[in-house]
């Protein structure tokens, strides 16, 4: 049987500062957007100024005539229909970025402006323009479980509610883009800001009809993706075309406006629903009509019911198309939406029944919710939730929570409220990825894989694993990732990167160690079986210590180079978490102020406590942005986005950050489960918990997210 994770690790689980942290903090790390190969041209993209328009005529001659403009590439041609504000039309490469922008401005286009529908209401209205031949809506298959109508009749209580959350965008700080250099006619180097170096390699190879072996995609570090950076995209291909045409490397990154409008979004979600429970507060029926828009594409599906067991349910979901950019996966696709709708409704039902919403949650967990364990027994996730809830309620001080009615009666304009929510996620690994481990005769050790570090600390945890096996320090390992020529690496999506890459890294290091023993045993007058690893040394028969470097020197001139793959027992999937919020709302201004957030999270074996915590903090903060601030605002009359920027598209700054208490749900049983990804789960429940705390504070539900002053005051006016 393949090896399992060590029982008493020296490094695994420790908080080790990330290997590239100082390079990033001193401005020395080179991001794809920082690459400046010799002879570089800068490119800019021209995008649609209309929500819906046809290109009647396009003339690039004026642009081409500008001194310094070296190439123009059309992404959309004459006759093409542009379907949203921000859709790409052309790219211009020039000696400077300023000139490239001049070039974009000089492209003359005659548009036939078409009627648009940029909001769900516009797309559904009578006489709305048809955005696809099949119309503007696409209904999913109705999903039905049990007999919801009968269950509703028998229920002790029910509520009818409407909840919604708008479209938001990823706002990657490094915008989408790449630098492309042709090395001769048929080879290409691409410095790409991507979360999928292998995917970009095959896309670029396909687009230019060159063998994938001749395309090298490099992503040593990258400035955020959150699910939006899996592909080469039209602009990647445009950069390749421009580089080919001009014979010079081309830098092309979107500007901030384009990043908001064309580089992906998290679809909106809305629900009209009836939720019912029996007299003990156990959910019994859910009947829901849901909808959402991911812009011109589909992709607005989300899970419902969510987390809780609802034995009788009927749900009909409709995707609505509007003149907006395409949806892309965004950190836990669908889950934040499903979570905030489910948790809001549950909370409102508990309120109506006069039950503590915590009790309703506990009563409504499935009796058995089995999740796997890598090397232990399968677990009941409902039990995990119960223990987590205990930790969370203590940390937030849930016993201070008052009912909505009591809070509403409290004196003065400032009201305090508490809320909570549960979430779940998969986070398992794939079994087809590889890592190479090289031990050189000078004692240096290198790991190689085509995976990338999207900011999670993946580079560091792989090194930590190898260092654990070889008795070295994490900093002794050159963790070389982000190169598509290396063994196949996992794309950073679905919280699968670390669980996909940790097993092959572990196995590669173990095999390298065993081969090292075999190759140097003779020179140490021993049998391979006599050798073992100590800290920085090779032990002969458990006694004689040979310093690591001296031992490696015995390799002569031939390094060790082995490639490890996946094996069973090292990973699992299926995590749970819960979050709690304590906040105050000013009922005169509608401003919500967070006091404290508690996040309890399970993700199996935690490899690096420091980077793990950073991910959970980051998830919570992204979640609080979703709960309080974010919305891409579309103007119904012009069809344009009103806030494709970073001041009116609001994100939390330092002063918006409350006390955040992260509680790792970490015990022997969890560690036995093996590695599970944590990127996504901790961002799911935050907005839902905030919404519930606001409702608790105000004594009334604010049904539309985010909890902005406008939405809060509107709800108060209606109450």
């Amino acid at each position, binding site marked *: 049987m393949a090896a399992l994770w060590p029982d008493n690790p020296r490094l695994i689980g420790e908080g080790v500062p990330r290997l590239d942290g100082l390079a990033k903090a001193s401005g020395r790390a080179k991001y794809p957007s920082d690459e400046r190969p010799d002879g570089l041209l800068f490119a800019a993209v021209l995008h649609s100024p209309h929500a819906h328009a046809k290109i009647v005529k396009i003339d690039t001659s004026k642009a081409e005539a500008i001194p310094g403009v070296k190439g123009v590439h059309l992404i959309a041609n004459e006759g093409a229909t542009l379907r949203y504000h921000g859709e790409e039309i052309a790219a211009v490469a020039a000696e400077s*970025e300023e000139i490239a922008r001049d070039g974009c401005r000089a492209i003359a286009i005659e548009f036939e402006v078409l009627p648009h529908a940029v909001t769900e209401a516009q797309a559904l209205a009578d006489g709305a323009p048809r955005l696809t031949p099949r119309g503007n809506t696409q209904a999913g298959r109705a999903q039905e479980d049990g007999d919801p109508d009968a269950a509703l009749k028998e229920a002790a209580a029910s509520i009818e509610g409407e909840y919604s959350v708008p479209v938001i965008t990823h706002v990657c700080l490094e915008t989408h883009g790449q630098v492309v250099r042709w090395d001769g006619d048929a080879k290409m180097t691409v410095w790409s800001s991507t979360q999928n170096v292998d995917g970009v390699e095959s896309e670029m190879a396909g687009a230019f009809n060159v063998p994938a072996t001749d395309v090298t995609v490099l992503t040593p570090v990258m400035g955020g993706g959150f699910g939006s950076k899996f592909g080469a995209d039209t602009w990647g291909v445009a950069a390749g075309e421009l580089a080919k045409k001009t014979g010079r490397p081309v830098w092309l990154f979107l500007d901030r406006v384009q990043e908001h409008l064309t580089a992906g979004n998290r679809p909106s979600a809305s629900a009209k629903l009836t939720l019912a429970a029996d007299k003990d507060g156990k959910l019994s029926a859910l009947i829901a009509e849901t909808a959402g828009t991911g812009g011109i594409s589909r992709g607005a599906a989300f899970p419902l019911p969510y987390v809780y067991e609802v034995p009788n349910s009927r749900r009909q979901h409709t995707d609505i198309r509007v003149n907006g950019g395409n949806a892309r996966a965004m950190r836990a696709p669908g889950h934040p939406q499903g979570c905030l709708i489910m948790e809001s409704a549950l909370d409102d039902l508990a309120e109506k029944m006069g039950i503590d919403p915590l009790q309703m949650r506990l009563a409504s967990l499935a009796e058995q919710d089995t999740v796997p364990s890598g090397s232990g027994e399968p677990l009941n996730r409902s039990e995990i939730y119960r223990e987590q809830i205990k930790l969370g309620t203590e940390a937030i001080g849930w016993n201070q929570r008052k009912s909505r009615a009591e809070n509403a009666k409290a004196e003065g304009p400032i009201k305090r409220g508490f809320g909570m929510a549960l979430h779940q996620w998969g986070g398992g690994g794939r079994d087809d990825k590889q890592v190479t481990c090289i031990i050189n005769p000078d004692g240096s050790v290198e790991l190689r894989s085509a995976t990338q570090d999207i900011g999670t600390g993946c580079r560091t945890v792989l090194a930590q694993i190898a260092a654990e096996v070889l008795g070295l320090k994490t900093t002794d390992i050159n963790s070389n990732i982000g190169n598509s020529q290396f063994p196949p690496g996992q794309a950073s999506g679905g919280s699968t990167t670390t669980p996909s890459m940790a097993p092959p890294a572990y196995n590669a290091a173990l095999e390298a160690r065993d081969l090292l023993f075999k190759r140097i045993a003779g020179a140490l007058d021993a049998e391979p079986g006599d050798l073992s690893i100590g800290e920085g040394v090779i032990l002969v028969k458990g006694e004689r210590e040979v310093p690591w470097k001296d031992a490696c020197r015995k390799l002569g001139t031939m390094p060790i180079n082995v490639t490890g793959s996946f094996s069973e027992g090292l990973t699992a999937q299926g995590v749970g978490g819960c979050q709690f919020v304590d906040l105050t709302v000013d009922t005169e201004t509608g401003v919500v102020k967070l006091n404290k957030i508690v996040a309890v999270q399970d993700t199996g074996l935690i490899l690096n406590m420091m980077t793990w915590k950073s991910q959970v903090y980051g998830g919570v903060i992204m979640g609080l942005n979703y709960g309080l601030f974010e919305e891409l605002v579309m103007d119904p009359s012009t069809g344009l986005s009103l806030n494709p920027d970073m001041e009116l598209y609001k994100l939390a700054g330092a002063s918006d950050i409350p006390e955040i208490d992260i509680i790792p749900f970490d015990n022997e049983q969890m560690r036995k489960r093996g590695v599970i990804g944590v990127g996504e789960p901790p961002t799911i429940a935050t907005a839902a918990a905030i919404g519930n705390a606001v409702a608790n504070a105000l004594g009334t539900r604010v049904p539309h997210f985010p909890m902005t002053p406008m939405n809060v005051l509107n709800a108060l006016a209606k109450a």
Partner: protein
Amino acid sequence: MPPEDHKAPAELPRPGHSRRDFLRGSSLAAAGAVMATSAETAMHEARADVSETDGVAIYSGTCPIELKVNGEAMSVTIEPRSTLLDTLRNRLGVTGPKRVCDRASCGACTVILDGDAVYSCTTLAISCADHEVRTLESFETDEGSVPHAFHQNDALMCGYCTPGFVTACQAWLEKNPGQEPTLDDIKQGLDGNICRCGTYIGVFQAALDAAKAMKKGGA
């Protein structure tokens, strides 16, 4: 790009606007007049093409200027409209400061200009001729330094906002030597920066640690 591509001209009397002044809301109208004069001098010195229409000077073409970056004199040819950020990143290869919002709202492009933290994305390079520009590449990195504190506290994830936070922090500490800031001071000092990965908690601790180390070092 084109419809929204309005670069804000530098409207303040000194090169670059101090982030704090900016937040307080400076009197733009009065400042604009002063700028016209100092920009004019800089332009003439830099020998850009200058023509006059109805008494208004119009600058065009390219002009060579001298910038002092991280203690080094650098010659560079720019356009009058080139921002300090784009000049550093695209023409001088100084890529530590990042371009994120390009309009003074995120702080990723922060540099230290004559001792003040400024947004280099909304500072014209031409106005910085003969002024002292420092970017984070020039900061100390060993124990006690700001970058070191960021690293040790894992105050970064993707790291793209990090140069701005590190620089804002460094500028704050230099302006307030020997002080031990409170958490609220730190939050206020860093309110001109945005992190999408959500590294604020680590950033606060890094700033507190760096301040403590600096106080010790200075005492």
